[in-house]
């Protein structure tokens, strides 16, 4: 069955990418999603001094790292991924995760067990700086992993990294909303977080619309095919159901309810989870919608 599908893919003009997002490759998408949320959560939790938010960010980053390991066929060789940071965005992401996990651990020790060392001490300050550097790398690298792929024109967009940063921020707000819905304390009010969610979601929608428009109007046939697959083809259900309905409409309605009246903690928790799941489906849909550049095109001029 798998073999027949491969043969079918090789014969197809637009070969869907199946390396990531299918089979074990789903863990690559999960890893990218979770790590993105972790980076965003760390930023917002730092800004609003949420110890629970910072802890959640650390846990999520660790889980994201684990998902990346599951994606590998030889996880025991994971350390080799540190080797090529000068050219490979995946290797840079690896370093980002190492920095983040190490730094976040040092900083969290200072927050939870100040008897060991404080956040102002050398280990605490070092952890703070390292985690911040890791956070920036984690937010930035994912989009570049995709946009640097010349093989899949739909991903090969300059907007992709910005979109992934925006999604990380949106995920971070969702994470902070979630921990606050469960009673954790921070300097942010729900209204403030809801306004952040609205603003960042508007940016996400704008970037995503621009990217789709660019691929449809300025992209080649493979990019247009990906847009078609996303909006009216094999990924339409996941896009409309997951990204739009679950990730945009449900949270938007809950945000509206929260800003115009008294929102329950349960509603905030649902909002956070729906928003995060929507982000996952956005990544999943766009990754799966990627099709390879046809090897043989008319422009090659096989004849004189």
């Amino acid at each position: 069955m798998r073999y027949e599908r491969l043969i079918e893919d090789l014969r197809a003009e637009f070969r869907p990418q199946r390396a990531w997002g299918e089979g074990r490759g789903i863990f690559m998408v999960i890893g990218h999603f979770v790590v993105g949320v972790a980076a965003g959560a760390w930023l917002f939790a730092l800004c609003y001094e949420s110890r629970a938010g910072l802890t959640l960010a650390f846990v999520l980053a660790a889980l994201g790292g684990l998902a990346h390991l599951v994606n590998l066929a030889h996880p025991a060789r994971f350390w080799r991924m540190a080797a090529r940071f000068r050219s490979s965005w995946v290797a840079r992401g690896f370093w980002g995760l190492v920095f983040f996990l190490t730094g976040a651990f040092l900083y969290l020790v200072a927050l939870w067990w100040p008897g060991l060392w404080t956040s102002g001490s050398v280990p605490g300050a070092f952890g703070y700086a390292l985690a911040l550097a890791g956070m920036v790398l984690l937010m930035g690298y994912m989009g570049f992993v995709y946009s640097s792929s010349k093989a899949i024109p739909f991903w090969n967009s300059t907007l992709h990294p910005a979109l992934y940063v925006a999604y990380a921020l949106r995920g971070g707000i969702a994470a902070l909303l979630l921990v606050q819905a469960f009673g954790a304390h921070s300097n942010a009010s729900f209204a403030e977080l809801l306004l952040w969610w609205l603003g960042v979601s508007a940016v996400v929608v704008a970037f995503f619309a621009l990217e789709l428009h660019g691929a449809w109007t300025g992209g080649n046939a493979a990019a247009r095919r990906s847009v078609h697959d996303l909006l009216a083809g094999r990924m339409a259900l996941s896009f409309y159901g997951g990204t739009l309905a679950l990730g945009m409409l449900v949270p938007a309605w809950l945000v509206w309810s929260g800003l115009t009246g008294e929102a329950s903690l349960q509603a905030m928790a649902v909002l956070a989870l729906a928003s995060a799941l929507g982000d996952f489906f956005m990544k999943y849909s766009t990754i799966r919608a990627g099709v390879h550049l046809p090897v043989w095109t008319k422009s090659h001029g096989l004849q004189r």
Partner: protein
Amino acid sequence: MRWGMVIDLKRCIGCYACQLSCKAEHGTPPGVFFARVLKQEEGSYPSVRQLFLPVLCNHCEEAPCVEACPTGASFKWDDGIVDIDHDKCVGCKTCMVACPYGNRYFNDQAQHYFPQGPTDYERSRMARHPTGVVMKCNFCRHRLKEGKLPACVANCPTVARYFGDLDDPTSEVSRLIKERGGFALHPELGTRPSVFYLPA
């Protein structure tokens, strides 16, 4: 020194000898084709003709797979051949996503062609391919070391394939590219492939 290949599309008859000889030489598992032939029909009845495009790893000078590989498993020899060190490959498939020509394959499990189990041939030839790693054409590097041509070149019945040093302006491949307008696939990507085609 930069090994390269020229494929004359005027001579190619789409017989799949290259694909088969490659399979026989490397004993690749099901679903892995270091060399394959694409077919396309052109025109409309009654003026229809079939075109063939044999493809393989392009051993790009600016190989995106080498750049994207996080471990250094994908690398380039001094003679321009892009190869994979299977001991370093973690199976992340980043190179497969990066290759614009779709000439990398993932060998996820030990496979055989027939339901009754692996044949003796498969046992002897496929066992040397590790699983959980990406595989690709290496211009039959082991044959080059013995002074032989790559299997697909040596076994092409119509002599549609030429192999030589692209850096040497007097080599047959350089001459053919120059005289007959050899072109590479997707030159707009800036990958600078080492496989060239002569127009049909």
